[in-house]
């Protein structure tokens, strides 16, 4: 079996605060993994460690069997909504085009015809061609997140990491986004941080619960009891409660 991601004994500290402690996680190719857990539980930190934005103090990460630094292909990344400067003067097409940039090309870079074709085709995939020249400050929450997902996909990644892509998104757009993710999951491995329990029950293949330590990780189809326990409870419990209580059978 090929793994998209292998994480061994990963520990991350921010100054003296422990964000992640001794995480072991393998993600199979073409998996659709949801990471749930309380705020401050280290979900974003885990994703950022995989991306190489956060440097771990201890442990090992492999992406498609390679060292993250040697993994030259782009990784698709959709940051949290609050990360952005929402009044930044840039149009939708220009945002998606940034997904076509690479670190290696040099001075006086111009986007090629192919870059434009890919970016335009992206707009088509989520039916937002009419937003092509719109400023991002004029987008709704749902439209904005769609643009960010398309920017990540414009890099043509094998691996897509999304940090709460449906926060600030209306229900219609939520469904569209999840359907879209399901479709691209046929060729792309997806890791999704979410508080959205409805999505977990109907779209993802695996679930990991994170609160500094990884408490549960596995296929949800395998155990009816877990499905019951994970999704039979209110959103609040998963979002703000302690996940291993929800999944106590497979806790620590």
């Amino acid at each position, binding site marked *: 079996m090929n793994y998209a991601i292998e994480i061994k004994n990963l520990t991350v500290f921010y100054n003296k605060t422990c964000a992640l402690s001794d995480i072991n996680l393998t993600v199979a190719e073409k998996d659709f993994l949801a990471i749930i857990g309380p705020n401050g539980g280290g979900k974003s930190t885990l994703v950022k460690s995989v991306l190489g*934005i956060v440097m771990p103090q201890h442990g090992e990460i492999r992406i498609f069997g390679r060292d993250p630094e040697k993994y030259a292909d782009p990784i698709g990344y959709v940051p949290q909504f609050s990360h952005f400067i929402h009044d*930044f*003067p*840039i149009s939708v097409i*220009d945002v998606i085009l940034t997904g076509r*940039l690479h670190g290696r090309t040099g001075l006086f*870079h111009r986007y090629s015809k192919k870059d434009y074709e890919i970016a335009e085709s992206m707009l088509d995939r989520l039916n937002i061609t009419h937003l092509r020249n719109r*400023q991002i400050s004029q987008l709704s929450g749902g439209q904005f997140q769609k643009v960010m997902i398309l920017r990540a996909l414009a890099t043509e990644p094998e691996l897509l990491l999304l940090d709460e892509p449906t926060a600030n998104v209306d229900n219609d757009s939520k469904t569209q986004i999840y359907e879209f993710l399901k479709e691209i999951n046929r060729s792309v491995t997806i890791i999704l941080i979410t508080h959205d329990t409805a999505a977990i029950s109907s779209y993802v293949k695996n679930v990991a619960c994170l609160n500094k330590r990884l408490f549960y990780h596995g296929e949800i189809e395998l155990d009816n009891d877990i499905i019951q326990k994970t999704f039979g409870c209110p959103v609040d419990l998963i979002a703000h409660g302690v996940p291993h209580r929800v999944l106590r059978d497979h806790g620590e």
Partner: protein
Amino acid sequence: MLKALFEYNFLQNAFLCSILISIACGIIGTVIILKRLVMISGGISHTSFGGVGLGYFLGIEPIIGAFVFAVAAAIGIGYIGKKSHRNSDIATGIFWSAGMALGILFISFTPGYPPDISSYLFGDILTVSKTDLLLTVILDAVIIFFIIAFYNYFRAYLFDDEFAAVLKINVNLINNILHVIIALTIVILIRAVGIVLVLALLTAPAAIAKLFSGNLKSIMLLSVFISLVLCFAGLWASYRFNIASGASIALLSSLLYFAAHLVRKISDYITDRKMQNQGN
């Protein structure tokens, strides 16, 4: 004044200086307001006063001391700020007052009569020298080259540096170059508007431009134009009423900023009303 412009060399220099600093200040000012670096810029500017003082103390050109201090402050604050935003806020405050204090310390240790520091604090565009102009030309060239040569990367970095880093774009390098350029721009502006008043000219034109445009390139160009108008108007007022150019430029910048805000609010209100009327 037009006649005087042809007669007096110092007015020609001031005129040229206005054009040259407007280019730097329009482009870099846009970056500063977009990246929320306004207070850091204030910190860099005030820290450079330490360099002015050191220049007097060692008997070298004060502006060179200011350059060294400004670049050190930019890199220092940038480095501390990389860890957390709160730390960057604190570092800005500390650099700010430590720089001023060092400047005063050096100047009081300087033997002889104390030099006139008010032209550094409040600017005097009417006394810029040929060397100042040459430095400004070089800085403008560096800024324009950097922006044009790296435009796509630079915009990606400004919008979302994390994503740019994931694309393996050398974000640290861009960040350091940008901080050094901001430091150099501030030092150049000090000659015209002074350490204390530099923020007005650095932020107002870009902030005004941003009210009326949603395209990064147009905001930069518009803000160059606005700062040009402000500098000319300030220069004229300074010459006509014999006041410090820094004060007149800073005041005009602030006034124009509030006026532009008002215009924007009124025009938004009118558009809203029109839309409502059409809706009915």
